[in-house]
Structures are given as C-alpha cells and as structure tokens.
C-alpha cells in the first residue's frame, strides 16, 4: 500500500490558522464589577441613614468632585474614603461602628456602618465616573488587604480559603449606594 501524501496538511493547517486569526480577538475583557440595586418598590420608605455614616461623593457636569462638603481631586479620594470607613480616631463626624460576630476574625469585630453615596450628573463624563468608582474600589481593596494581612498574613486577593474570604467581605463590605439619578441637565 502506498503511503498517503501528507504535504498538503501544512496548507490545510495554515488555512485554519488564518481563519482563527481573522475571526478572533485577543483582548481580555476586564472591568469594575458592580451590583445594581434591585428596582425600587414605590411603597417602601427609604432607609434612614445617620448623616455621619454617609460619605457623600458628588460629581458635577464639569467633572468636579465634591466630597462631604468640599472640593477634592480624584487623587485624594482614596485616602479620604479609607479614613472615613476605618475611622481609627473615632471622630464623631465619621462613620459609626457596629458589632458583628465573625468567628474567623476572633469573635466580635467592629465593622463600619459607613455607606458611600455616589451621585453624578447626567453631564458627567464616563471617564470621570469610572475613575471615581475605581478610587472607591481601591480604598475598599486596600482596607481589606490591611485586615487580611493582620489576621491571615496575606493579601485579600491571595486568600484561598472561602471562609476567610467571606469573613473579610463581611467585615468590610462594598457599601456603595448610587442615588436615583437627578435630571439636572445643563449645557
């Protein structure tokens, strides 16, 4: 029996290779993951939040940042958020604490009641909005890393044990509330 000529397999493989190169994309999709609040129930009254627990972040149509009654740059936002949430000096103007029982962190943990309230104008640029979301996410990541280092010796992202991950998440939740959009349109 004569051997089958295999010279053309290379050509066939090349054709397939080129097909894949054309139809596919290399880019990895990444993004800031967020959960939207469920649709509003009109009968439900909005929860009353103590003013000291509210970290108000406003972005106006000129992309200016207004945080707790003063202007701020994006670069300062992360540290301000961290100070507000952790409130190490027990400042009465900053977030209150509540006791949460987390066995993995050695029983009672003083978790922050702080809620970040983010509000933007319809004229805010998307880039600015993402930068602000990113800074807020960074603040939370850094706080989680600090807590995780203190208790488990590694960064939060390096934790493998699901129980430990949940303990940290419970101690420092992602508490970002986005207000109902305001229809203030200015040009």
């Amino acid at each position, binding site marked *: 029996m004569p051997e089958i000529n*295999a*010279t053309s*397999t*290379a050509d*066939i*493989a*090349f054709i*397939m*290779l080129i097909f*894949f*190169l054309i*139809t*596919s*994309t*290399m880019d*990895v*999709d*990444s*993004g*800031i*993951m*967020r*959960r*939207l*609040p*469920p*649709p509003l129930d009109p009968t439900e009254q909005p929860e009353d939040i103590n003013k000291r627990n509210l970290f108000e972040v406003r972005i106006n149509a000129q992309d200016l940042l207004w945080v707790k009654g003063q202007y701020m740059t994006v670069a300062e936002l992360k540290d301000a958020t961290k100070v507000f949430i952790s409130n190490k000096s027990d400042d009465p103007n900053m977030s209150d604490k509540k006791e949460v029982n987390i066995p993995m962190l050695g029983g009672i943990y003083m978790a922050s009641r702080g809620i970040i309230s983010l509000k*933007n*104008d*319809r*004229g*805010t*640029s*998307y*880039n600015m*909005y*993402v*930068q602000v*979301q*990113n800074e807020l*996410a*960074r603040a939370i*990541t850094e706080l989680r890393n600090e807590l995780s280092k203190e208790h488990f010796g590694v960064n939060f992202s390096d934790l493998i044990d699901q129980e430990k991950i949940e303990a940290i998440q419970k101690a420092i939740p992602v508490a970002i509330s986005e207000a109902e*959009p305001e229809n203030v*349109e200015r040009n």
Partner: protein
Amino acid sequence: MSKFISKEKKEVPALSTSSLPDIVFMILFFFMVTVTMRESTVLVKQGMPTASEAQKLEKKSLVSFIYIGSPLDAKLGTEARIQLNDQFATVASIPEFIASEREARDEVDRKQLTTSLKVDQNVKMGIVVDVKQELRQCNALKISYSSIKKKEGN
C-alpha cells in the same frame, strides 16, 4: 593533499518539511485556546477608560455586551448611541435584548448573567444612567464597567 578533497560534487540534501504540519498545528491550537471569537462588529467608538481595580470577566459565555459611544460612521453624527448585537438601538429595546440573552442561556446560568457596559470614555453619563435604570427594571443587576486594567505604581 588531494587525498582529502572528494572528487564528487556534494549536493545539499532537500530540507525535510514533514514536520511543518505539526508546527503549524501547534500554533493553531495555541490560538484556538487563547483567543475568543469576535461576537459582533462594533459600530461605535470604543476608547476604554483605564482602571487599576478592573477584574477579569470570568465566564465569557455568561456575559452580554452593551456598547455605547459615538458612531464610527461620521455621517451618523457624534451623539452617543447604544449598540446591541449588531445594530444601533434605543434604551427602550434593552428589556427585549436582556430577555433574548437570558433565553439563550441555560436556566441554571441565568442568574449569573453579567452585563458588560463597554462605554467610550468621552460619553456623558446621562445615557449610561438611562441604560442602568433600564437594566435595574429588568433585574439584570450584575454589571461590569468595562475598562483596561492599569498596573498601578504604588
């Protein structure tokens, strides 16, 4: 001296190409594994913002995309438009889009469906807010603000 010089003329033997298909197949498999299929042609401008906290979208099959940006075709103006699948759409057609995306997935996976908002960085938030409100109404709560991961230099 002539002892060492061979009299016959030596010819270069033909290069064996029998391993060429194997090499090409290897490259082919590499590409098949690493890449993802392009799902739709993007009709709007896509300049992604950068963010250091961006996380990789884990399950590609459980992500549906909403593109927002000004049209690439200059004839259509510069006003930001929404693109669903392969065509321009309005905010009002988002519930239908989400429903069809859910329909296409297994029942078990439907809750995990993430909507990735691929928005150009120059777009104003107004249109994004409208899209988000619409997504809330149809209970597609997991969203991702698509952005390029930036290495941070602490």
